[in-house]
């Protein structure tokens, strides 16, 4: 046999091997989340929720920290899709919950035509006309409607005060709170923004008291929420406190005594440690066993998002286009709620209100607001 046929045979064998190994590559879902920086607490929950849903699924996943800057998120996204592997294997991306990072990633997701599943609350990410954004956590449009309605309709607030964070997260929530309170005929009598580094809350709380407010609505991150609640108790501010979703996080409650928590309420997409149904309790137990911490709504939302994606794969989806089509058109019953896209990628349309009794750091769900957008 001359050299040429032998070379052709070897080349054919190599090609067949390479093709076979390419075909054997598992589907991939890069998990890009902020696990360092100011959103690390929530980002870690997001990662854990995704990881718990992906374990044992046969889907390959790598976790990449996006920290707090859009540049790092963009680099992580590009690396995940172009790092020498077959790009077609990437059927979706678990994308960071930080709104500024999501805004930078949306054009990239459109360019690569890859769907992103996230728990970011920033309203704008689903207002860009992208077919690739799917949000599995109720956005501010949903949770702030529940927040305002509970304060006014259930607690009888006539003169609510609002304290919000000056970050993009805080301003987005404040705008929705303002809109909903005005629609309910109870506009805020006092509103002030706080930087995340503010330590002493007495100045702002004394202004709340001087305003004659009869309810205090918070939209703050974890540490500032606990500081406000503690200092409000210390100064004897005796009005209902209805906090944002940070207050539902077990880590926030852990900073306060049950006595300080007594009567404090919060909005959230869910509260897995408060639920009693067997499936959610099983999720909470598995989460505790895997990560040695309590689950929160961000973890559950991301878990549900990845589980819907796995449902798509079970239904035969094996490409990014298939996944996108499934997420956009189908309804999915998750642990926290039923999810369906509103045509913009907003999948979550329900919220809960939970309150602490003062006996423990586990809140009880006192009100459920289902299908606030009318999509389901």
């Amino acid at each position: 046999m001359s050299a040429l046929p032998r070379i052709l045979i070897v080349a054919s064998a190599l090609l067949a091997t390479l093709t076979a190994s390419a075909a054997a590559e598992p589907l991939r879902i890069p998990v890009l989340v902020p696990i360092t920086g100011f959103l690390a607490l929530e980002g870690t929950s997001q990662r854990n929720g995704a990881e718990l849903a992906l374990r044992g699924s046969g889907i390959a996943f790598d976790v990449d920290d996006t920290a707090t800057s859009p540049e790092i998120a963009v680099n992580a996204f590009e690396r995940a899709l172009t790092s020498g592997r077959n790009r077609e294997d990437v059927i979706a991306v678990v994308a960071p919950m930080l709104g500024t990072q999501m805004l930078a990633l949306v054009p990239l997701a459109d360019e690569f035509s890859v769907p992103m599943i996230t728990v970011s609350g920033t309203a704008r990410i689903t207002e860009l006309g992208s077919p690739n954004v799917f949000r599995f956590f109720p956005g501010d449009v949903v949770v702030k409607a529940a927040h305002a309605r509970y304060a006014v309709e259930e607690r009888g607030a006539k003169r609510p005060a609002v304290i919000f964070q000056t970050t993009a997260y805080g301003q987005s929530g404040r705008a929705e709170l303002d809109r909903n309170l005005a629609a309910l005929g109870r506009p805020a009598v006092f509103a002030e923004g706080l930087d995340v580094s503010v330590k002493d809350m007495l100045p702002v709380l004394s202004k709340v008291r001087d305003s004659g407010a009869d309810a205090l609505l918070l939209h703050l991150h974890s540490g500032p929420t606990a500081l406000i609640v503690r200092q409000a108790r210390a100064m004897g501010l005796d009005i209902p406190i209805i906090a944002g979703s940070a207050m539902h996080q077990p880590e926030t409650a852990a900073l306060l005594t049950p006595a300080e928590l007594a009567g404090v309420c919060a909005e959230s997409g869910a509260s897995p440690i408060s639920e009693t149904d067997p499936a959610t309790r099983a999720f909470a137990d598995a989460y505790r066993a895997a990560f040695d911490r309590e689950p929160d709504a961000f973890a559950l939302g991301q878990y549900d998002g990845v589980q819907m994606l796995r449902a798509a794969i079970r239904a035969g989806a094996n490409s990014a286009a298939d996944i996108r089509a499934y997420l956009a058109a189908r309804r999915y019953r998750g642990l926290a709620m039923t999810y369906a896209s509103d045509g913009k990628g907003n999948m979550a349309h329900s919220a809960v209100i939970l309150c602490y009794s003062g006996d423990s750091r586990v809140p009880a769900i006192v009100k459920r607001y289902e299908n606030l957008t009318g999509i389901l």
Partner: protein
Amino acid sequence: MLGAQLALNAVALGAAYALVAIGFVLVLNATTAVNFAHGESVVAGGFAAVAMTAALAMLLPAGSAIPGIVLLPGVLVLTALLGLAIAALAYLPIRNRPPVSVFVTTIAFGIIVTNGLNAAFGAAPRAAPALLGTGTIDFLGVTASRQSLAIIATAALLIGALAFVLQRTQLGRQFRACAQDPEMARALGIRLTRITLLAFALGTAFAGAAGLLLAHQFFVTPSDGAGLILKAYIAVVIGGWGSLRGATIGAMLIAVFEVGVASVSSQPLAEGLLYVAVLLVLLVRPDGIFGEPQRLRA
């Protein structure tokens, strides 16, 4: 009474910031190095207290209260060791390079500390025990938390002790000599490296004490360091490079803006006005309120 209450809160917050700032000044005084890992050293002090509390809780009967004063010596030792590590790894190898090199190495060290704490403790805010117990004391209509009073007393004690050492002892003169003219100090027999290590150890121990005090009152997270170093830097700029008294006044001024000015305007406006005040101070007194004549410092 609200005014008195706000004043007390401002003094307590300013005292904690002053503890942060004087540790920064101590290193600056002895080495001319701007230690940008100082904020992370404060955070490390808070987490050292959290870790020691958890360790002691396993040894003591369930429900035993562990006061922060018991933890303070351990926190001081651990953060002093951290200071030695910062000096050995981020300063001494490059001390003859331009100041910007030290900026970069200490910033890098700080990032390593932040990420290490994040990996070890997680990202959630944590609280350390109160120094002498919780609760409040009412006096003439003003409610003072025991922790606020403990912060003020501890800061006064430590700052007073440091001022005494720097101004009245041979060691203090050696610190100042090393900062003013290291080569001459070496020629006179002062062991420069030893003084440098001591300055970093002491300065970082002060940061650790501040971390313990702040971590009860205001909680601590691994990413708090950047905000704290900014406050220390502003305090030192206002008060004057190298001035203990200036750093303390600068720290108090920051607290007055954060508590007092914020109570009559808004927090974002108060923050803006603080930076306007910094600019005015620099325009009128470029070396700060108690600044020494300008030298080649960063």
